[in-house]
């Protein structure tokens, strides 16, 4: 199969799924409307009636990991093409990637020493 045909197939599958889901919504809608009762549309909060919307400022405790991850994540962009040619190139590839990963690993160790790897 030509690559473009494959992507068209994938696209077609995505559109079909969306269409089926939309049909499900339509069927559900035709089955009857939601009754409007007081207190029904309040989100679950263990019995409290939440007065405010939940879109407030929220302290995310893992932002240290998030920063590390953003940078560390890029390593995979180089790693996949490298893995494909690994056996063909041989020992040179191992040394190259070894140096690269050692450099990145230094970053991980640095973060560890700075107490970045814990709940902030």
């Amino acid at each position: 199969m030509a690559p473009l045909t494959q992507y068209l197939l994938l696209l077609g599958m995505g559109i079909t799924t969306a269409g089926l889901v939309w049909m499900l919504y339509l069927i559900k809608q035709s089955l009857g409307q939601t009754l409007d009762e007081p207190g029904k549309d309040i989100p679950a909060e263990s019995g409290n009636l939440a007065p405010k919307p939940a879109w407030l400022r929220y302290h995310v405790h893992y932002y240290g990991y998030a920063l590390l991850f953003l940078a560390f994540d890029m390593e995979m962009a180089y790693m996949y093409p490298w893995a494909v040619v690994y056996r063909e190139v041989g020992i040179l590839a191992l040394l190259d990637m070894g140096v690269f990963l050692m450099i990145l690993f230094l970053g991980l160790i640095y973060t560890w020493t700075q107490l970045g790897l814990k709940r902030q």
Partner: protein
Amino acid sequence: MTPFLSGFMITLLFVGGVYFVAVLERCSMTGNVSWSGPARSFLLLFAQEEIKTRKHDKVFFETAPILFIGVILLTISILPFSRGSVVIDLGTGALFINAALVYIMVALLMAGWAVNGVYAMVGGWRALAQLIAYSMPVVMALTATVMRAESMFLTDIVESQQSLWNILYQPVGFILFYISALAIAFLPPFDLPVAEGELAGGVWADLTGARKLLFRLGRLALVLTLSVAVVVLYLGGWMGPWLPGFVWTFLKTLLVAASFFAVGHFIPRIRHDHLLEYNWKYGVPLALYNIFQVGVVLLL
């Protein structure tokens, strides 16, 4: 095998597999096997009233379930079920699995934001925390299988396991991928985004009717997808004596799915910050060791 027949077989295995996974899930929660249970809860959710929370984000509320289930169907369409029986044999299959599974987290985040409830929101952020934790080990484990196959075609990865399955060739990678698969599918013990005990359902808490149905169905299909992925990447795919390829894939998949639920049944829930800590302190170095080991063995 003709394309029509193999397409029919893939659909059959997919539907049957999802039903079987649903039975397994009920069994892991209630302890008894009920073959009609999934059908009954399907009808229940299908007939359930659609409740929309106040001030919900309309666009996300409608699109999050579509994204969730669509991504899973795209992933299953690139996985090979038998020799030559794969819907789309993508040239970057190993990377595509990873790329598609990232969007599970995005769908959970969207659903959590859309509901405008505190618990759902917290569940969404926890889904992102889990992604940050498992993403690196999963990528490196996948890379090690690509190294052995010298190709990102999933069929080539299966063919490369002709002499020795990857589970024996790179056991560390298998363990990392297996645990991460549990976290990707947010199964227990990593079910924090939808934790029943502490978040009262988390992301799913306020979804009813069709949306809840899509999320539940999507999660069952996700478990099946990940089981097939484990089989394809580490357990030799369709390979096995005597029986045809489809049967072997199906048997191995069911075994892996059952083991997923069994693991979740016996291990307590792990906090997301502990998961982050363990994965970055031990998981990433182990994954690096795995790549190094595979690299050295390949060169010998």
